């Protein structure tokens, strides 16, 4: 991909105290470092090794990923919101890049 492609599913509005699901999917090869090209050259490990979800500046979910996590990693988790705000997702690539995306949640 010319740029990292991200899909997310976040409810635009939720009731206060309601448990809701958040899903994200990111297009990433997650090269585990054990594969070789057809020419026999080892493909360097390059994975997303960490995922974080931050709501209004506070980390609400985090995960360390390792080499067994598949291509295009998917994650789903549940949350409860007390007030409206912005959820930000961060994916930390081995190459130092951090991919981000965000969504607003309105609490009614």
């Amino acid at each position, binding site marked *: *991909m*010319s740029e990292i*492609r991200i*899909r997310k*599913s976040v409810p635009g509005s939720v009731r206060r105290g309601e448990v809701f699901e958040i*899903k994200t*999917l990111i*297009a990433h*090869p997650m090269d585990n470092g054990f594969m070789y090209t057809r020419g026999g050259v080892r493909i360097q490990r390059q994975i997303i090794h960490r995922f974080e979800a931050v709501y209004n500046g506070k980390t609400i979910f985090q995960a360390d990923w390792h080499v067994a996590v598949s*291509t*295009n990693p*998917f994650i789903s988790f549940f949350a409860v919101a007390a007030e409206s705000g912005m959820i930000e997702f961060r994916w930390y690539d081995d190459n130092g890049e951090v991919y981000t995306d965000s969504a607003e949640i309105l609490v009614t």
Partner: protein
Amino acid sequence: MRSFARIAVLAGSAAFTIAALALEPDLPDGEFPVSGYRFMGPQVQQLQDDDFLNPGWFAVEFGAELWQEKAGDRNLSCQSCHGDASESMRGVAARYPQYDEHRTGLINLEGRINEMRSRYMNAAEYPLESEQLLAITAYVTHQANGSPMNVDITGKAAPYWQQGRDLYTRRQGQLDLACSQCHDERAGLMLRGDRISQGHVNGFPVYRLIWRSMGSRHRMFRWCNWAVRAEPHELGSDEYLSLELYLAWRGRGLPIESPAVRP
């Protein structure tokens, strides 16, 4: 002695489980044509059905961006002429490949997209099997979702159909296998860990799990040739265009299913 008996019982139940697993999918009996979807395990079917998880959607979404992206001297995008793809491209992919007068040969959807870029947009053609070409092809094919494959094999297309049929039925490679020996005569049976499908092309371009990426019909043909240890033809070659025409005809009536996921 007793433990030996127990092992025998265990082995027996294991064999039974394997047999039961092999029979598990709801396989069509004598039905034709049947999409590769029906030959996949339920996990892969779920992956394809889930619009959020299906990785083919990355390509379709990227293709939707490319549809609107202006390129070339004339500063045109696909949309400049064709407008809303959901209207103008509805059912189009189901009619490819087809005979093309300009080319005096067959052209497939990828070829048509590239022809549009070079002839009308004065833009560079996308390289075959590039991310861009797969994405725009997947996007256009998606607009034909549900349309039954219906290619024209009459007139000037007829000799190509014949050539495709010859390729399909001819034994080749070190394993000396013809496509038809697996996909006609042994569809539904196991080939090691894989279930043999009828070899239809209604889902392409597909997201293939073992590739971890999208691939075109021609990439699949190359893979199949390689799998029987035959020398693959080039992407976009006349041989593969003919085979593509034959297979599209062979699966006529099957609805286009894009973006498909295949194992």
